[in-house]
């Protein structure tokens, strides 16, 4: 592969999206075929990131650099390392699923729907691949636009509120990041993220910058107490939107912590790590309880997403307390656990939302009480649903276990009580997930409409099967994923532990 692999990954879907818009809704089938074909192509191309990836170095790979806005030394600078590469592949992977899932479900303006997702794919890849802060910010914000439209145009009854809330919430979060990026540019004369890693900052500066970043990333993750956009957005978004939102967009926040907060403001991260950890634990426990009483399936999964993402932030920020000189394993467990959790959550939440989507397409209700005894009419589907539910509950052998396991192991070493609180998700997580499974899938049929449900068709089956394979494979053998990020994370750990003061 030549050097412009990442550019190809970014721009191919975006231009394909434009093309699909031009094809128009009238020729919907052409649009669908092209979209799916492009997404598969992009996925295949992105796989070469994995195959050609050198996991023995923390340095950026597949780098591209060209002057963009010379006024500010802004470069079109792309590159990936062990943190971003898996997330890019996750993105390309999820997009295929979403496009296939929307194949016949989306009947209003199908071409635009497909185009929005394709463009979003490109933009999100851009987020993960950017090595220039402004380029990053541009992609970061731009990716809001297609999501805004996806929620607003194809969403549920209260979509307008949800879409605008989503947009403003995340927009508000990220503008502070912009200010701090500019601040660092003024200080260091470069918008390159890697240069910012080496920029020396005083304690006060770090604190301000840390919180500015925190605003941006915490909203995106989302962390307690800035999470309330998520349930609304998820519930109102069409299935595909929820999937991308949960599977990828939330990861942008976690990625931000990895890429910006830890290396740029290590001392502030250390100083405020307990605050973040406590917020994460609140997210895990408190949100777990909130999830338990939800009556809307999507809302339940949305809340469970918040809870699961709490592990990501917990894992990241536990490193400072878990690290002991000479024994980096605990800190690494947390950090890598956070990464693994992000990827795994990408699969599982996507799967869960698709599961709800399958039901919603049939009965147009997300209320748990509408269902009951679905297994009787949809046994195959229930099989998948239960598998994913178990993964959501963190059952060993599924990917859901790996991240949580690692983070809990790490957190316990930071402070036993962190571990206790985090571990409570074993109970609460199982409770809300399986209670929903129980009320939706098991039992006798109470609603006559459930009886008429037809089991998943080949298209739905294949989507769920692919996800199931991914979930189980990663649960049984996570090492390949860890291999890829190991060196990078170790380097990151060093950065986070090296004081800038």
């Amino acid at each position, binding site marked *: 592969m030549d050097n412009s692999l990442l550019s190809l990954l970014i721009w191919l879907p975006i231009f394909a999206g434009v093309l699909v*818009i031009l094809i128009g809704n009238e020729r919907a089938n052409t649009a669908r075929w092209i979209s799916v074909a492009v997404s598969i192509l992009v996925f295949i191309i992105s796989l070469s990131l994995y195959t050609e990836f050198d996991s023995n170095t923390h340095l950026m790979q597949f780098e591209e650099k060209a*002057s*963009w*806005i*010379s*006024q*500010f030394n802004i470069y079109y600078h792309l590159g990936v390392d062990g943190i971003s590469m898996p997330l890019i592949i996750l993105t390309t992977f999820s997009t295929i699923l979403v496009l296939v899932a929307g194949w016949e479900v989306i009947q209003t*303006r199908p071409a*635009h729907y497909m185009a929005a997702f394709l463009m979003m794919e490109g933009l999100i890849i851009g987020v993960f691949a950017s090595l220039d802060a*402004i380029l990053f*910010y*541009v*992609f970061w*914000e*731009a990716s*809001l*636009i297609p999501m*805004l*439209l996806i929620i*607003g*145009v194809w969403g549920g009854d209260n*979509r*307008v509120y949800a*879409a*605008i809330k989503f*947009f*403003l919430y995340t*927009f*508000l979060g990220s*503008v*502070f990041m*912009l*200010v701090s990026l*500019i*601040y660092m*540019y*003024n200080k260091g004369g470069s918008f390159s993220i890697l240069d910012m890693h080496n920029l020396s900052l005083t304690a006060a500066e770090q604190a301000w910058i840390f919180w500015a970043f925190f605003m941006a990333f915490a909203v995106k993750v989302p962390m307690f107490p800035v999470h309330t956009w998520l349930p609304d957005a998820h519930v109102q978004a069409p299935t595909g939107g929820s999937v991308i939102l949960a599977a990828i967009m939330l990861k942008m926040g976690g990625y931000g912590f990895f890429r910006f907060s830890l290396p740029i403001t290590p001392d502030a991260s250390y100083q405020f790590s307990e605050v973040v950890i406590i917020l994460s634990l609140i997210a895990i426990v408190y949100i777990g309880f909130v999830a338990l009483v939800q009556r809307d399936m999507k809302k339940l999964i949305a809340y469970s997403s918040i809870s699961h993402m709490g592990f990501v932030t917990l894992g990241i920020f536990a490193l400072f307390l878990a690290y002991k000189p000479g024994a980096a394993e605990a800190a690494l467990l947390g950090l890598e656990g956070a990464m693994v959790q992000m990827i795994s959550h990408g699969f599982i939440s996507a799967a869960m939302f698709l599961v709800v989507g399958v039901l919603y397409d049939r009965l147009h209700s997300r209320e748990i009480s509408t269902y009951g005894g679905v297994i009787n009419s949809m046994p195959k589907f229930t099989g998948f649903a239960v598998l994913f539910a178990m993964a959501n509950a963190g059952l060993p052998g599924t990917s859901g276990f790996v991240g949580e396991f690692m983070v809990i192991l790490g957190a316990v070493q930071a402070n036993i009580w962190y571990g206790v609180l985090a571990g409570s998700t074993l109970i609460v997580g199982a409770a809300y997930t399986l209670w929903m499974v129980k009320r939706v899938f098991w039992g006798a049929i109470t609603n006559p409409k459930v009886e008429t449900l037809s089991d998943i068709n080949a298209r739905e089956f294949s989507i769920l099967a692919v996800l199931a394979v991914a979930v189980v494979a990663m649960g049984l053998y996570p090492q390949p994923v860890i291999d890829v990020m190991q060196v990078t994370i170790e380097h990151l750990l060093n950065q986070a532990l090296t004081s800038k003061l």
Partner: protein
Amino acid sequence: MNNIYTFDTSTLWVALPEIFLLSAIVVVLLLDLFLIKPFKQVTYYLTQLSLLITGILAFNLIGEPKTIIFGGSFILDNMASVFKVFMAGSTMIALVYTRHYLTSHKLYRGEYFVLVLLSMLGMMVMVSGYSLLTLYMGLEVLALSLYTLIAIARERAGAVEAALKYFVLGAIASGLLLYGMSMIYGISGSINISDIAAFAANASLASREMLILNFGLVFLVIGIAFKLGAVPFHMWVPDVYQGAPTSVTMFLSTVPKIAAVAMLVRILVDGMGAMHAYWSDLFIVMALLSIALGSVVALMQTNIKRMLAYSTISHIGFIMLGFVTGVVSGYGAAVFYVLVYILMSLAAFGMIILLNKQGFEADNISDLKGLSKHSPWFALMMLVIMLSMAGVPPFIGFYSKLFILQQVISTGFVTIAVIAVVFAVISAYYYLQVVKSMYFEGSDKNITITASMDMKLILSINAVLILVVGIFPDFWMKLSISLF
């Protein structure tokens, strides 16, 4: 004594664009009188041609060394030439949109074009003005033409009311400005910017000169703030934007901002640059008030023109922040912002005009309902425009804000930057209202677009530019900085 009073005709070429334009105005005016109905369109084309030639003439002067003629009243520098080119270009675009509006609202009259050209002339005078007197004269030429343009829809009560308000307040503002000018003249003994600059540079702190300069400065700043439409001298903006015929609003909200900024630069930067510390304090307050009030009050609006008026006030706040920095690159950022703002504002009003139907102003946000169904392309364009105004990347509006913020932060005003971005987020809400209307809400009304091809084409190019320049903003940023 007589030898002081000279008039050197050999330097007149420097004012060639103005001279040409004035001649062209006379030609258009006279020709229009004799044109019979079927050929009325000739006025339009002639106007466009005049603007084109004016623009070309101005373009040719780019790169000429700084020249001051007419006894110090007139300056030719790169800023002046570039601004003139931009003004000519923007006016041409505006006129493309205008023609559609005028025909559909039965306002098509030759005088309209003459007045636009006259205001253009006034703005060119302002841009090149290098004495308080010429600046004032240019300002009045512009203002009087605008009053007339607004009132040209004379059957409409709103338009007349808007014109009247603008007129009365404008007159007061002129009075204040003149009062300030008299003070500056009285203390410095000259009305030439260069003399004033020299005087201000030499005035020592806490001296009598400083006191009077400052005293005059307050009035000058107010006069300029009024022209820009900054809070608390913004009251005319929403009423005039709403009341005026849309084509006039479009013109009024765009090109004159360049002139106002040019006047600001001439008086405050070129003339009172030494007193930056004094006027920048005022600017900070007014800029933040503008950003805040513009963002917050716009939330409440249902009329899209009025909403854009408040949004303009907010944008003006950002532009003023550029001048707060007191450094060349900051001024460059402000100029960049102005140019970007004009590009966006033209497109936004162009969209409103595009949606006009025979005699019906589509100026409520709800009139855009369901646009994305009936005309996805233009809905997309409007989306781009609105998000760009909100400052969302990758559109050009983001880079202008970025540039300003970068400058503001580098001067040490981090808090100001934070306040500004928070309000930028608030303002995003009302831009989203437009997006909401277009995309999220259906409508049983069938929106048909009746505009001619040239209008559609130019509008599309205009909107696409918002994206394209957004992707490659480097040149324009550099250009803006190079003007100082």
